[in-house]
C-alpha cells in the first residue's frame, strides 16, 4: 500500500514555498506532485502600474539571491524594445556584479548541500567563504543584496577605481578556497557515495521538461546564454561552459563548484579590461513594441518579456525565474529513489532550501511518521553509514 508524503509549503524565510506530495511504497518514491503559489505576490500585475525605472527595483525582490539577474533581464527587455546599445563600461560593470552574484549563490548552495548530507564542515566553510563576496558586492554597489544596480540603458552608479584592488584581493583568496573546497568535496568517498548515481535526470527528460542552468548542464544539455546569446561582456572575456554527462546529483554539484572558478576568471578579466566612458545609454522614451530580455542566472535562464504601449509603464510584463522550469524536473529525478534521498533530489535544483526541511511523512491515517527533523536525521544517518563502511 502506498503512503503519501507532503513536503512544505510554508516557512517564513522561503522565497518560493512549494507544496510537494510524494507517493511512496515503503522507502521507494513512486510519484511526486507539485503545488505552487503559496506566496504568489501578483508582481506581473503590479509591474504594469510601475514605471520602467521602478520596475527594476520591484523585480529585484522576486528573489533575494539572484536579484541582479531579474533586474538585468528586465532592463534588457526594455533595451530590446528601444533598440539601444548599452555603453561598454556599463556592460562590464553589469557583468562583474552578476558574476559575483553567481559566486555567492553557488557557494550558498554548496554550504546547504553540506548541511543536508550532514557535512557540517562543508556548510561552515561554504558560508564563511561566501561572506567576502558579499563584502565585495557591498563595496561596488552599496548593498549586500538588492543592489539597485541595473537600470534600462546601463547601471545607476559609477565605481571609483580604488576599490578594484580590494575586490581582486578578495577574489584571489576566494579562488584558493574554491580549490580547497572542490578538492575536499570531490576527493571525499563519502560525499561521492551520497551523490553519485542518486537522482537521475536523463538528457531526454531534461530537454522535455525544459530544464535550465546547472540542472540541464548536469544532464549533458549544453546550454548557457552567456555563450549562446552573448550579452554584457561575456563575448569579450575568456571562459568555458561547464557541462557534465553524469545526469545525477554529483554532476550538478560538480558543475556548481567548477563554475565558480570560471566566474572568478570572468570577474578578474572584466576588472582588468574595464573601459572608461559613460555608464548609461540615457533612454528617455520607450516606444510601442515588444521586447525580450533573458540572461543566465545562477540557477538558469531568467526570462522577462515586456510589451510597451508607448507610455512610461509596461502594458504587460511577464517574468519567469529558472526554478519555475526546474521544479518539474524533480518528478523524474525522484522516481524510484528512497525517502532519504528525496531531500537531496529536491535540493539539487537549488530551490529555496529551507522548504526541504519542512518535509513531513504521514501514514494513510494522517499520523505523522517522520517530521522535518527526522528526515534530515535520516539523511545524516545515511552519510554516517557510508562513512563507517568506507
Amino acid at each position, binding site marked *: 500500500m502506498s503512503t503519501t508524503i507532503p513536503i512544505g509549503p510554508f516557512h517564513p524565510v522561503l522565497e518560493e514555498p512549494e507544496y510537494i506530495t510524494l507517493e511512496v511504497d515503503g522507502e521507494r518514491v513512486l510519484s511526486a506532485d507539485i503545488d*505552487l*503559489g503559496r506566496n*504568489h505576490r*501578483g508582481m*506581473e*500585475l503590479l509591474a504594469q502600474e510601475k514605471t520602467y525605472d521602478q520596475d527594476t527595483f520591484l523585480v529585484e525582490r522576486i528573489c533575494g539571491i539572484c536579484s541582479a539577474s531579474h533586474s538585468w533581464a528586465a532592463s534588457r527587455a526594455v533595451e*530590446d524594445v528601444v*533598440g539601444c546599445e548599452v555603453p561598454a563600461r556599463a556592460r562590464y560593470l553589469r557583468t562583474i556584479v552578476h558574476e559575483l552574484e553567481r559566486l555567492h549563490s553557488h557557494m550558498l548552495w554548496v554550504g546547504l548541500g553540506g548541511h543536508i548530507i550532514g557535512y557540517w564542515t562543508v556548510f561552515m566553510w561554504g558560508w564563511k567563504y561566501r561572506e567576502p563576496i558579499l563584502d565585495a558586492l557591498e563595496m561596488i554597489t552599496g548593498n549586500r543584496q538588492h543592489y539597485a544596480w541595473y537600470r534600462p540603458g546601463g547601471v545607476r552608479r559609477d565605481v571609483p577605481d580604488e576599490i578594484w584592488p580590494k575586490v581582486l584581493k578578495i577574489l584571489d583568496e576566494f579562488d584558493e578556497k574554491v580549490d580547497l573546497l572542490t578538492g575536499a568535496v570531490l576527493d571525499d568517498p563519502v560525499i561521492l557515495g551520497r551523490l553519485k548515481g542518486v537522482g537521475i535526470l536523463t538528457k531526454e527528460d531534461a*530537454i*522535455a*521538461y*525544459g530544464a535550465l542552468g546547472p540542472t540541464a548542464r548536469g544532464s549533458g544539455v549544453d*546550454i548557457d*546564454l552567456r555563450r*549562446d*546569446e*552573448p550579452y554584457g561582456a561575456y563575448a569579450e572575456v575568456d571562459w568555458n561552459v561547464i557541462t557534465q554527462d553524469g545526469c545525477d546529483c554529483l554532476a550538478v554539484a560538480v558543475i556548481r563548484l567548477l563554475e565558480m572558478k570560471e566566474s572568478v576568471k570572468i570577474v578578474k578579466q572584466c576588472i582588468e579590461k574595464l573601459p572608461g566612458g559613460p555608464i548609461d545609454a540615457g533612454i528617455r522614451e520607450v516606444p510601442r*513594441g*515588444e*521586447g*525580450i530580455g*533573458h540572461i543566465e542566472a545562477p540557477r538558469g*535562464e531568467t*526570462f522577462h*518579456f515586456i*510589451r510597451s504601449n508607448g507610455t512610461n509603464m509596461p*502594458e*504587460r510584463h*511577464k517574468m*519567469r525565474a529558472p526554478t*519555475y*522550469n526546474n*521544479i*518539474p524536473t524533480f518528478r523524474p529525478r525522484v522516481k524510484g529513489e528512497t525517502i532519504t534521498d528525496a531531500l537531496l533530489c529536491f535540493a539539487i535544483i537549488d530551490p529555496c532550501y529551507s522548504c526541504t526541511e519542512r518535509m513531513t511523512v504521514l501514514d494513510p491515517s494522517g499520523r505523522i511518521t517522520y517530521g522535518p527533523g527526522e528526515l534530515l536525521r535520516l539523511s545524516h544517518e545515511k552519510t554516517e553509514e557510508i562513512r563507517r563502511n568506507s
Partner: protein
Amino acid sequence: MSKEVLERLKTKFGDRVDVVERSARRAYVTVANEDWIPVTRYMHEEEKGRLCTATGSDRPTGVELLYHFGIDRDGTIVNIRTILAKPFPRIESLAKYYPAADFIEREIFDFLGVEFDGHPDPRKLLSSHDRPADFHPMRRDE
C-alpha cells in the same frame, strides 16, 4: 539570426504563418488557432526550439498566447502568437506533446481562463484553491 529556421517555417506552412523579424535575434510569428499545435510542435520537435516560457495577455482583440521558443544554437528567440476569441478562449494543449508547457499552460488557465484541451493535468497552478473558478485575475473584462 535563425534565418534558416524562419525560411523552413515559411516553406513548410506557407502563408499560414505571418513572420515579422523585429531584430537580428527576435522574430514574431502569428498563426491561426487551427495551426497552433502543428506550428508549436514543429518548433520544438523539428527545430529543437526550447520553450522558454509563454505569455498570456488579455488584449482588445481577444486573449493572446505568445509562446517563446529559444533556438539556443544561434542565440535567437522565435515567438509564436495566436489570438483566442473571448469570452471563452479555448485551444489544444501543447503540454501533452511537450511537458515543458505543463506549468505555464496551467498558469494561463488560472489567470486568463484559457481552456487547454487535452492538458494532462488541467488544474490551477498559482492562485489559491478557494478562489471562484470563473474569476481570472488577469482578464480585463468589463
